[in-house]
């Protein structure tokens, strides 16, 4: 039987506010345990939550970027459950009146096709603390620094049809929240994570199958693997005559499998009700207009502009616009050197390779956009060849900053003197008489051999265009 996969994602994005959603404690990552957990976060008797204006603005900004409905009124609700990392005994969240209602996001698939994915809603809520299960004499340690950090939970429609689509959606959302500067996107620190609701159904069936929820996926690779594993598991189960149970599962990256978290008997009985400590939030037209003014150029808009302004292919434009800082870096280089395609190749090639290898973001890149611009200019004005430029780039990466100084001190200047090149070529031809004969007899592909020999003789400094031209002239004479 042919099966169809149905996936819905719930993404939790930590909002990049300075203080918590309902208290004045800091949200900075990495502080000593419980030094950023104030009386409100600890839910001491008598405390009251006061809503952070910036968290509201960020949620609204997100809603505007998704072209979503943003209702005039939004209500906070209590989601009741007991767990030690949640001292209140309930999470302040939103239920039937979220701050952001229906919106949508376009994703681009590997085959270049675009799909629009519905976003059901996005609501504000508070994050819980952290439980440390290392052994404290048989006890569990609780750090409440994260408790009360603002979260935006973004819920998609069950419209994703494969693990790859889920990853594409997640990546797009990841880029978007960083473009909007509402979330730092740091997945390793848990600032951006997701739960995946996965089910399968026979192709053609309208009703959904029973779903399992995979919790806390915090890398793109894990999401893809966890979903693929879960889909296989459900299909195998059903084909063997079994039934999928609605439950919460955990992905184990070491074993590459999902396993059931012992399902609680009273699972999901959260008894939501409006939080009596908080009044309804009013989103005025004035606020919407004000926030709309702060919207940056979004990834899709940037992509379109890159294609129009720099004549980039859709593939290049998509890749370059995926990360705001990389896009901005590229744009400085492209405008500076006037060779957009070369700028794109350098940013996606050498630069990205070095960044990946060093595992650092572009913000920490040792080669500035201005420096790369000069380097590319030295290729276009024929001072150095593209190949030599890569060597110069390595020098720049390791701390040198003056392109021209490197070229001078290392004697890398390209040889463009035709007579010098001609002399080198003549020597190569003289030393390889049999290849010359073969070439003249029609073995055209030996051209590469000759070019290689000449470049070697010039230590890579001969201008490749001139080498080709003169070679052809001499060989064909």
């Amino acid at each position, binding site marked *: 039987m042919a099966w169809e996969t149905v996936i819905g994602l719930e993404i939790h994005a930590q909002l990049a*506010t*300075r*203080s918590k959603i309902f*208290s*004045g*404690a*800091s949200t900075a990552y990495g502080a*000593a*345990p*419980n*030094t*950023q*957990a*104030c*009386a409100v976060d*600890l839910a*001491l008797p008598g405390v009251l939550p*006061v*809503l*952070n*204006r*910036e*968290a*509201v603005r960020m949620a609204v900004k997100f809603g505007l970027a998704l072209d979503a409905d943003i209702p005039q*009124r939004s*209500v906070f609700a209590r989601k*009741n459950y*007991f*767990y*030690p990392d949640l001292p209140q005994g309930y999470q302040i969240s939103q239920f039937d*009146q979220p701050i952001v209602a229906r919106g949508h996001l376009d994703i681009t698939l590997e085959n270049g096709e675009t799909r629009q994915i519905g976003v059901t809603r996005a609501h504000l809520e508070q994050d819980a603390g952290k*439980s*440390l*299960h290392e052994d*404290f004499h*048989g*006890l*569990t*340690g*609780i*750090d*409440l620094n994260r408790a009360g950090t603002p979260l935006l939970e973004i819920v998609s429609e069950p419209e994703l049809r494969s693990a790859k689509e889920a990853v594409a959606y997640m990546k797009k959302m990841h880029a978007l929240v960083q473009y909007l500067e509402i979330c730092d996107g740091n997945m390793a620190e848990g600032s951006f994570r997701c739960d995946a609701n996965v089910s399968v159904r026979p192709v053609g069936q309208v009703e959904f199958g029973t779903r399992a929820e995979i919790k806390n996926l915090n890398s793109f690779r894990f999401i893809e693997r966890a979903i693929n594993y879960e889909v296989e598991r459900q299909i195998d189960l059903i084909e063997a005559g079994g039934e999928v149970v609605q439950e919460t599962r955990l992905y184990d990256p070491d074993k590459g499998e999902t396993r059931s*978290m*012992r399902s609680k008997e*009273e699972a999901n*009985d959260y*008894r939501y009700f*409006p939080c*009596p400590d*908080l*009044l*309804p*939030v*009013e989103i005025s037209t004035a606020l919407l207009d004000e926030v709309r003014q702060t919207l940056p150029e979004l990834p899709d808009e940037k992509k379109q502009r890159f294609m129009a302004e720099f004549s980039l292919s859709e593939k290049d434009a998509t890749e370059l616009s995926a990360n705001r800082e990389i896009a901005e870096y590229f744009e400085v280089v492209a405008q500076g050197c006037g060779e957009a395609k070369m700028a794109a190749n350098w940013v996606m090639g050498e630069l990205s390779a070095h960044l990946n290898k060093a595992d650092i973001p572009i913000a920490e890149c040792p080669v500035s956009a201005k420096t790369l611009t000069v380097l590319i200019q030295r290729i276009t004005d024929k001072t150095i060849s593209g190949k030599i430029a890569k060597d110069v780039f390595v020098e720049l990466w390791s701390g040198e900053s003056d392109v021209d100084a490197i070229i001078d001190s290392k004697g890398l200047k390209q040889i463009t003197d035709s007579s010098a090149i001609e002399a080198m070529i003549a020597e190569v031809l003289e030393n390889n008489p049999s290849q010359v004969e073969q070439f003249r007899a029609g073995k055209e592909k030996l051209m590469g051999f000759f070019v290689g020999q000449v470049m070697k003789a010039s230590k890579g400094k001969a201008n490749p265009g001139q080498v080709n031209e003169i070679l052809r002239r001499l060989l064909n004479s």
Partner: protein
Amino acid sequence: MSLTAEEVRKIAHLARLSIQEEKVQTYADNLSGILDLVAQMETVNTDDVAPMAHPQEVTQRLREDVVTETSQREKFQQIAPATEAGLYLVPKVIE
């Protein structure tokens, strides 16, 4: 509307309340009385009434995003039953 003894035990468990078995029926009767009152209220026609999340016609005031709290961990932890390395210690909860 009448609440069963089983439902009372479930509600008590969800709220982590320990109740005496011999009082379960009393609670069931009392809670059912409240639900009956709600049922009675539900017979009122509210077609033209907007749902209310709060009794006052006011909206939430917002605070500026500023860090105003400094660490008072030592004070808070003095009243905690057990702490270590800055952490609050609780009975093991992992499943």
